[in-house]
């Protein structure tokens, strides 16, 4: 399997403080990779720097063999990276339908040419179909999370960045989300980079990276994720 994204000794600064240090990481197509670690070790920063919201100080981000260090987020999105941020960030005053349409902006031609929402979304998240004309901000947290993931998928990404998709969400919806994510990986063969604290979800991943203080301190197959590793890097 070819490497979808490959990061080599990535360093990120926030003002004067050094947030990410020498990160090496890669995701292959059809693979789910999970990043674990306590709050504040830099997991979200990692995802933000991959989508381009943070500037790379040094190191390389290669996507499909091309260096995308200097590209803007919207350029990366059009290349096939989709980002589902922490806290969903759906557009509150737009309807659910419009929110979904925004997801297709990263397709060739943008949303001017793509207006039809693919039905597979409704299969994954049936609830969205009921709420199409509702304002995004009126949905509950879990529904917003589903909307956010659906929106990302509509752009037919090659790589999906998921930032704590289960945070603060009712358990039954967590299960829905988990199964949806595994399903799309199987069906579409895309790669997923997941930041997660919810262990059940973490265990579904193929591989894991553990972070501490801005660096990667352990990695391996999820099956090797032993109790010690968890208690060392995760305080759930």
């Amino acid at each position, binding site marked *: 399997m070819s490497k979808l994204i490959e990061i080599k000794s990535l360093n990120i600064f*926030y*003002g004067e*403080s*050094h947030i990410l240090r*020498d990160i090496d990481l890669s995701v292959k197509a059809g693979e789910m990779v999970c990043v674990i670690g306590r709050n504040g070790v830099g997991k979200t920063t990692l995802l933000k720097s991959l989508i381009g919201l943070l500037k790379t100080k040094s190191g390389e981000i290669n996507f499909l063999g091309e260096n995308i260090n200097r590209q803007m987020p919207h350029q990366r999105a059009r290349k096939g990276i989709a980002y589902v941020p922490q806290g969903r960030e759906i557009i509150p005053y737009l309807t659910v339908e419009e929110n979904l349409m925004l997801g297709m902006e990263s397709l060739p031609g943008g949303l001017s040419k793509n207006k039809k929402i693919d039905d597979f979304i409704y299969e994954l998240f049936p609830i969205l179909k009921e709420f199409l004309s509702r304002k995004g901000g009126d949905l509950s947290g879990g529904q917003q999370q589903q909307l956010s993931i659906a929106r990302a998928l509509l752009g037919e990404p090659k790589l999906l960045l998921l930032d704590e998709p289960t945070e603060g969400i009712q358990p039954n919806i967590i299960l829905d989300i988990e199964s949806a994510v595994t399903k799309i990986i199987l069906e579409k063969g895309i790669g997923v980079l997941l930041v997660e604290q919810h262990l059940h979800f973490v265990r579904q991943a193929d591989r894991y990276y553990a972070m501490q*203080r801005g660096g990667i301190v352990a990695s391996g197959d999820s099956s090797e994720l032993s109790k010690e590793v968890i208690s060392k890097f995760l305080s759930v």
Partner: protein
Amino acid sequence: MNTKNIKINGRLKFIFWVLLIAFVVAAPSLLPVFRLNLLGRYLSLAIVALGVDLIWGFTGLLSLGQGIFFTLGGYCVAMYLQLNSSSEFPNNIPEFFALYGVKDLPFFWAPFKSLFFTLFAAWLIPALVAAILGFLVFRNRIKGVYFSILTQASLLVFFNFFNGQQKLINGTNGLKTDVTQLFGQMVGSELIQRYFFWITVFLVITAWFFSKWLIKGRFGNILIGIRDDEPRVRFTGYNPVLFKTIIFSIAGALAGISGALYTVQSGIVSPQFMTVPFSIEMVIWVAVGGRGTLLGAILGAVFINYAKSLVSEALPASWMFIQGGLFILVVTTLPQGILGWLYSESPRNLLQRFGFIRKIKTYPSLEINKNGES
């Protein structure tokens, strides 16, 4: 390295002060009467600039209506001077009333016969008006740009009112002070003008120390707190409305004093002082000088006005270009103003606390990296 910088900085500052004081002391004998008069007027503008700095630089309230208070102060002294020298006119009221067929002095003029009253009114009335206006606005938590727009609208209300009321205050023409009498001397005379210059210098310094004293302690800290995070101030148990009203009214008082001094030195007060551009210019002086630095406000007011008068003598049409360009330049590239920028070069400086210096950002729970080489 750092300490060395501070020392040099201190020495520079000392030299700067010596030069400044020397200049002010020598000015009356060095400068021709006309230039001295200009300097006096621009110094009086420095007082209103201090007020703008207090409310904008420290408290975060951008008022575009300081002209109201400035003009009110000016009208107070002008009314006194007019009354004081109207004994030879019909009905013993100022000359202009006759133009509009007014025979009885409007009631609100009467108290201004007293010098004592006037000296208080010139800052108390603007302060009161500011307090009322401010209270009404702040009470409803109107802030940011809404506050600015509302103050500008209030400015227009006052401007139109003063402009339209010929029978009460001589409308557009305003009130003149140059040919009025003060202690038996003509106000426009060189002698009296020289006194006004000294009074202005004295009041600028007083206002400066007063402002410094205000912002130095906990009171000033609350103002900065209001600027940065007003809800937090509220939940800490302070009433921001009260503090904002107080500081706005202090700025109003300063504007009033400034307007009074400006009026007696320029010989006239008119609704022209309440036009929109003039009030915005006041903000520019502070922005260019350096908001959040009191000295910046003073220097900004004096230098920009002096430049304006020199440039417009030479190239009348180009001043608008220069002024506009200066504005854009300062806002986009020197947001701390010139003085703020100069200060920010020194690594450990006092002004950091006023927040016009690049903030060190940290990401949640990561300590500032002590061995941050990489």
